[in-house]
């Protein structure tokens, strides 16, 4: 019985380890895919910004975050995140602007998960600033004048 208890303990640890590793990898892979989808969307989405502003437009950032978390830029109702417990607050979207050109056009966009707690039952791993992707901005942008763009 003692031997069985010892072996069972070892077996339990092993199986838990397998689950822990497997689940963590699975979630990380999902996150990578979500960030990729968000980056692709971000690089082609339209940026409507104020002249001379080097801040990301809020609506643009929110749309990209929604693509990462829910898979669609404008989810309706109370949507379910693609990855458990992922929220839009955990996604960072950051445009880089060309300050040398007139109108400061966006040049690159970076999308990353700033902090995600990967809860694999036994141990919780916190992912900080990963996955991250940076891509040239290739969409259209316009300068807001008055209420219109």
């Amino acid at each position: 019985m003692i031997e069985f208890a010892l072996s069972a303990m070892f077996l339990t640890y092993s199986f838990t380890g397998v689950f822990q590793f497997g689940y963590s990898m699975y979630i990380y892979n999902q996150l990578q895919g979500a960030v990729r989808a968000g980056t692709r969307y971000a690089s082609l989405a339209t940026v409507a910004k104020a002249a001379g502003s080097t801040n990301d437009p809020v609506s643009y950032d929110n749309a990209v975050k929604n693509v990462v978390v829910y898979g669609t830029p404008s989810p309706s109702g109370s949507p379910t995140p693609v990855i458990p417990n992922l929220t839009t607050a955990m996604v960072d979207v950051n445009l880089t602007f060309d300050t040398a050109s007139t109108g400061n056009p966006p040049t690159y966009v970076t999308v990353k998960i700033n902090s995600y707690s990967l809860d694999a039952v036994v141990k919780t791993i916190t992912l900080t600033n990963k996955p991250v992707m940076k891509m040239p901005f290739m969409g259209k942008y316009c300068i807001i004048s008055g209420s219109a763009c």
Partner: protein
Amino acid sequence: MVGSTRRGQRGSIMLVTASSLVLLIGMLGLSADVGRVYIAKHEAQDFADLAAIASCRLLDGKQTGIDAAKNELATSAITNKWDFSTQTFGTAIRTIEFSSTQNGPWVTTPTSVAGPKPYAGVAFVRVTVTPTVNLAFLPVAGTALTQQVTGQAVAGVTPQVFPSGGYLPFTPFAHDKNDPTGNFGFTVGEEYGIHWPGNINNQTKACAGDRANWPMYNVSDTVNGSTRGYFELQSAAAIRDAILGQAQTDALAVGDMINLTNGNKQTEASALTELAGYDTDQTNYSPTPGTAPAYSGDGFRLVVLPVNDETIISGQVKVIGFAAFLLYPSYNGGAGNSAWCAIYMGSRTEGGGTGNPYTGGGSYVVRLMQ
């Protein structure tokens, strides 16, 4: 007797556990190592896709374009990494190759030809990354110590396929030829003149989007004749054919010089109306600056026009890009004093780099091929 049996049972449990150790570690290996390999593969593929598109859009037929593409690959590798975003895709594991066709042959240094565009045909980029993942558990089960994964993507600059093909024989004047957005100073959703009468002495005759940019017409007034907007074609029949068949035969490229022509031809207005009439969407959208109309037709009203640089030299202007315009459902050209307007829908060099359009002919788009 009893004791020996117990000893035997004890031994068998330990034996089974011990012999299943290999299997257990194999399982650990499967979940940990294979997981890591798959994530590395995913990261490598994402990097290749991203870098291929990013570098391909910089090709401009010249050495500068090839160099810029290579630099862009290095830039992409700064932030985009592998192995849980920790390892760089270094120069040893990344390659960028060029080709004039989608399927190769691929070369790292393309062959140049004589002329101002020595790499005019080079329109495809292939990015390959080959990171090597160190395995922790699987070697126990007899595999190699490392596993190499490959991410590969091909991106190309390909001719933009318009729903109905070709472009119309009208050339709008850019409002800002240096517009960094690539919109030529136009606003999506606003209407602009594609054809207009001469001697406009009050702005009410102009299309809404042109009223704010009045000096443009003063430039265009240097063209002789009563109306402007056509290029190249002279005869009414030829222009009509070009509109209806969209059979403009000149292969136009960014940088080409085109001759401005003139004339007010009633038949052209009815040809535009006839073309627009083919479309399944006959809604008369109002121009709304900043918002593209919710057009849902099959493309007959969505026409492509070469935009010029508003600088007339000996009756010629230079093509600086291609733009999509939405035609109204009907045109009346009866009055020679009215402008014909169309709604600007956007530049048609989608995904192109700013200021460095690929020059081969027509309008182009950057696409991920593989």
